[in-house]
């Protein structure tokens, strides 16, 4: 069930909690993808605490809204959200990436309660989300499907096969949230493989397109509200401008923090950054 609408202050506090979980998980695991998890933290917070119709007590509820984490490497932020939202004990977060853990390096729906889809291979998620949207229409079970994507995976051909098909089939219950942090493994997307003008591309494919500040709760909440009011004749994409590594000073906009290991010192600095933010 949806919670009573949280304030942006509450959302901010939750997102900060999730960011600290992400840093803790990646520090303990000795690997993991911090940058994209942090850029998407505010989006994920709004989804799980405000936007999605879900019930952590009934993770298999057929009418729940779905999230496909197409950028599966950012599993830590979703694991943190699932744990803090009550799908499983937050103590499990400490096992991330360990042998035998319920929390795999990339999401495994058969191991982790609350995950709607297995993911990790970039470019699959939009197709999968479209399949879910079609399933909702065909079954008459009313739910919405959200697909959280990275800007790097806009370079995958399969993404555009799905973008074309989603408009063709008028998949109005489908919403893509693009975490537009502008960085990918080899550098800036503009240098590796330009994806802009990404909004124009989706518009040309027949989508509703919304421009959003993805690390601003006011903008995010307003965008989701706007999206709900859009005509249901086509899918929608929220192009969210975000900062990779958001919230940790030495990670922000630094390509090297796409993935990596945290030393004790950097871990403490990161937690200090997030602690300071929490108290601000």
């Amino acid at each position, binding site marked *: 069930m949806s919670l009573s609408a949280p304030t942006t202050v509450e959302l901010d506090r939750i997102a900060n909690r999730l960011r600290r979980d992400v840093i803790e998980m990646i520090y303990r695991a000795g690997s993991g993808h911090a940058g994209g998890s942090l850029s998407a933290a505010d989006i994920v917070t709004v989804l799980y605490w405000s936007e999605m119709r879900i019930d952590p007590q009934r993770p298999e509820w057929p009418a729940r809204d779905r999230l496909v984490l197409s950028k599966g490497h950012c599993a830590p932020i979703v694991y943190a959200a699932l744990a803090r939202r009550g799908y499983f004990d937050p103590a499990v977060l400490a096992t991330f990436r360990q042998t035998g853990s319920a929390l795999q390096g990339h999401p495994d729906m058969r191991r982790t309660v609350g995950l709607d889809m297995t993911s990790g291979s970039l470019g699959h998620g939009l197709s999968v989300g479209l399949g*879910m949207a*079609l399933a909702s229409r065909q079954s008459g079970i009313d739910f919405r499907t959200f697909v959280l994507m990275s800007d790097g995976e806009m370079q995958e051909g399969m993404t555009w096969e799905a973008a074309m098909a989603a408009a063709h089939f008028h998949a109005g219950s489908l919403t893509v949230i693009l975490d537009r942090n502008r960085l990918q493994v080899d550098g800036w997307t503009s240098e590796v493989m330009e994806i802009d003008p990404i909004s124009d591309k989706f518009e040309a494919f027949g989508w509703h397109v919304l421009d959003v500040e993805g690390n601003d709760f006011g903008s995010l909440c307003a965008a989701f509200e706007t999206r709900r009011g859009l005509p249901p004749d086509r899918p929608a994409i929220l192009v969210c401008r975000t900062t990779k590594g958001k919230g940790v000073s030495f990670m922000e906009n630094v390509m090297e923090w796409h993935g990596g290991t945290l030393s004790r010192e950097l871990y403490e600095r990161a937690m200090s950054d997030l602690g300071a933010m929490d108290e601000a």
Partner: protein
Amino acid sequence: MGHVVTSGAVVHDSFLDVGSEDPRFAFMEAIIALAEHDERIVALDADVSRRTLTRHFRDRFPDRFWDLGVAEQNLMGVTAGLAASGRIPVACAFAVFVSMRAVEPIRTSICYPRLNAKLVGGYAGLSNGKDGATHQSIEDVAIMRSLPNLVVLSPSDAILADRIARAAIAHEGPVYVRIEYEDTPRIHEPDVRFEIGRGIRVRTGSDLTLATYGIALARAVEAARILGQAGISVEVLDMASLKPFDEGLLVGSTDRTGALVTLEDHSIVGGIASLAAETLLRAGRAPRFRALGVADCFTESGKNDELRARFGLDVPAIVAAAREMLEDRVVTDGATG
């Protein structure tokens, strides 16, 4: 006699040169019949619905069918999403593209999460002779059987196509069915039983085991008949369940015959030749063994049967392989005796 798929809609059209025994008709008839009673069954295609016959599914259930266009990867991703939401999708395209263009979405988004999706590869093997190497599927068994959780099935005639369609839908989990789109005689009895993981002994014999799958079965049976006239008793096995593979049936048979020929309209790499070799070695057996298949080369355009002759997969090739093998045994036995 044309097969009637739905409510009087006769499948035959003049554009398709197909006969009444093409296994695809029985397969799609069974899928549609099952879908009448299970609204979770939906179908998808990638712009080949006239060939795969999903067009008839669409006509019967227009709200339960999606043509994704020429986009096999998206076809499999959408299939995954439908299956993850409680639907039973039957995704049809050509075997060569299902097994290669779309293999990674199948692996990671269908097999890894063990989703209940049915993947159908049409024009398997050499059944699309004229289109040439680009459209012939001689690697799909090798590729698909390497994917964990995936069941791999291959009907040898129209009767088994019906049984396999029903078994695939009844199975909870991902299934790949490779179907050769070509007229082929009915070999199996109308009441034949099929079970995933079980092969079928089509003919008993004592001198040689001939193990095959798909429509090559008809050639195997004909070769066995000819060899029988020459006094060579051939046991024919239809190994329609390629994964899981009926190891007991194969080992039990070769234990009695002591000689094995595998036959497949597929590469000798990774198909039944490999399956048999793996099975027998694991079981500590070493019967005499010959593998008939496409010998690790690309194929070419031609009539289906001419290609089979060219690549050593026709009845004379089977007979010759069997004779050579058994004559060799006689000579060896004589030398050591």
